[in-house]
């Protein structure tokens, strides 16, 4: 059964057509990625889902039209959006606080997860005192503790160096196997999409449409030893993305 379903969604900012025609779905417990060139309109799609912007088309959650946006999604923005003035513990409880959970109760709910997120001992630190990878994990922890129906992750590892990113991808895959979150991930990184996802939607450059839906039949855990098979998939997707490039020329407005 699909949890999220998006049908023929379009969005323009003034005269700028950003999303041309997006249809996709995410099933319960499925990890789906959206892969597309920079500026395609990927973050815009999340804005539509979270209700920050309004577009045309239909969006359903569990079969019902998506109107009360806030209830279903835990959203992690493209930049980590940690509040510099809050200690890590208080950053991670933010979503619960907004939901009306008492600060003390929120803290005791979040605290046991710090070890699993590699943040033990850093509860009282400020975000500026953490490394990039730790900040991302803190932002992710803030996202998942909201216990919403589905995660929306906008390039969670985009700002990290290659080594940290690889480590974070492995960590996230392992976490996902444990929690089986229903998740939609935006990324530029073909390898990341293949490594983490059950399915991938490849978007064209702006105005974005879905050019391909790709199943990733690789077994989990996705250990790097199975690299040969994923290598073939990665090459195929890269091909699709690169073949999109020439079309960029006549799309100019």
């Amino acid at each position, binding site marked *: 059964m699909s949890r999220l379903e998006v049908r023929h969604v379009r969005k323009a900012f003034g005269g700028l057509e950003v999303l041309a025609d997006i249809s996709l779905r995410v099933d319960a417990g499925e990890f789906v990625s959206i892969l597309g060139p920079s500026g395609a309109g990927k973050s815009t799609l999340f*804005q539509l889902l979270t209700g*920050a912007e309004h577009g045309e088309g239909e969006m359903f959650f569990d079969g019902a039209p998506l109107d009360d946006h806030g209830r279903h999604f*835990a*959203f992690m923005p493209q930049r980590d959006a940690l509040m510099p*003035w*809050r200690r890590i513990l208080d950053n991670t409880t933010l979503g619960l606080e907004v939901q009306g959970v008492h600060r003390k109760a929120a803290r005791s709910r979040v605290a046991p997860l710090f070890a699993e997120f590699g943040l033990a001992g850093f509860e*009282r*630190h400020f975000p500026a*005192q953490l490394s990039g990878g730790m900040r991302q994990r803190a932002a992710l922890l803030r996202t998942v503790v909201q216990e919403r129906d589905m995660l929306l992750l906008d390039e969670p590892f985009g700002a990290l160096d290659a080594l940290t990113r690889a480590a974070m991808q492995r960590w996230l895959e392992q976490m996902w196997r444990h929690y089986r979150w229903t998740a939609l991930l935006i990324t530029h990184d073909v390898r990341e999409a293949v490594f983490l996802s059950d399915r991938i939607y490849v978007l064209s450059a702006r105005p974005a449409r879905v050019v391909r839906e790709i199943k990733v039949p690789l077994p989990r855990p996705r250990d790097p030893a199975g690299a040969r098979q994923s290598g073939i998939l990665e090459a195929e997707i890269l091909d699709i993305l690169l073949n999109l490039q020439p079309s960029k020329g006549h799309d100019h407005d």
Partner: protein
Amino acid sequence: MASSSFNPRHLAGLFAQAAPAVISIGLLLVAWELYVNHSGIKPTVLPAPSRVLEQAMLNRDALLDNAIPTIRATLIGFACSLSAAFALSMLVDFFQPLRRALFPVFIVSQTLPLVAIAPLVVLWFGFGLTPKIMLVALVTFFPMLVALVQGYEATEVEIGQMLRSMGAGRWRVFWLARLPSALPYFFAGLRISITYAVVGAIFAEYAGAAKGLGIYMLNAKNNFRPDLVLAAVGVSAALTLVLFGLTVLLQHLAMPWERAAGRQTAGKGPHA
């Protein structure tokens, strides 16, 4: 790790930072003293710093007596303008059209020459505390308002978006994100305004007052006592420095994360 108490190494750093300023002021005073001693200029024209200090000590009761009303006017006027600026900044943040309606008025208020306005305000409201408070508020209100409004605008877009996705309303977003984001701007504005505040109070007293550093300076000038004028100037400078120091201390205590950040990377943000 990041405690909100004072750290001695940090204090030592502050002294090291202040040292060049102390040295340059010291040199200036020495040069002034030497010039007065060697040129034989009359003390009724230009008194030496040593004479100013000596007279300040002799007249310390009168100076203190006149400093208190100035301090009172400065602090009350500043508190009034701060509360008004805060209330209005919130209003402007929630109803953006208000900004276009009100800002031109406030900008005009900043172009009024204090020299001309001060006597009028005294004429209207008398020699008491009221006109002083009003003038202090007039000179400090707008800088504080602009600082706050700019600070709210500096809120990271993603933070607002994320809070709304969590279900936060406008008031919640203001309280959780916009207000804390404005703190660096607020303190930058505070440091500038507090110096204007003292000048504003003295100006108001100069235009007429029962007591105060401003009227003390005017009387000393009329009695051909530049040494006492300068002594009062010294007192007002000291007062300004103390208030400035207090705002720095306040920022230090109110924004512990800035110190935490400073320990890792060079500070970022809009601080002068």
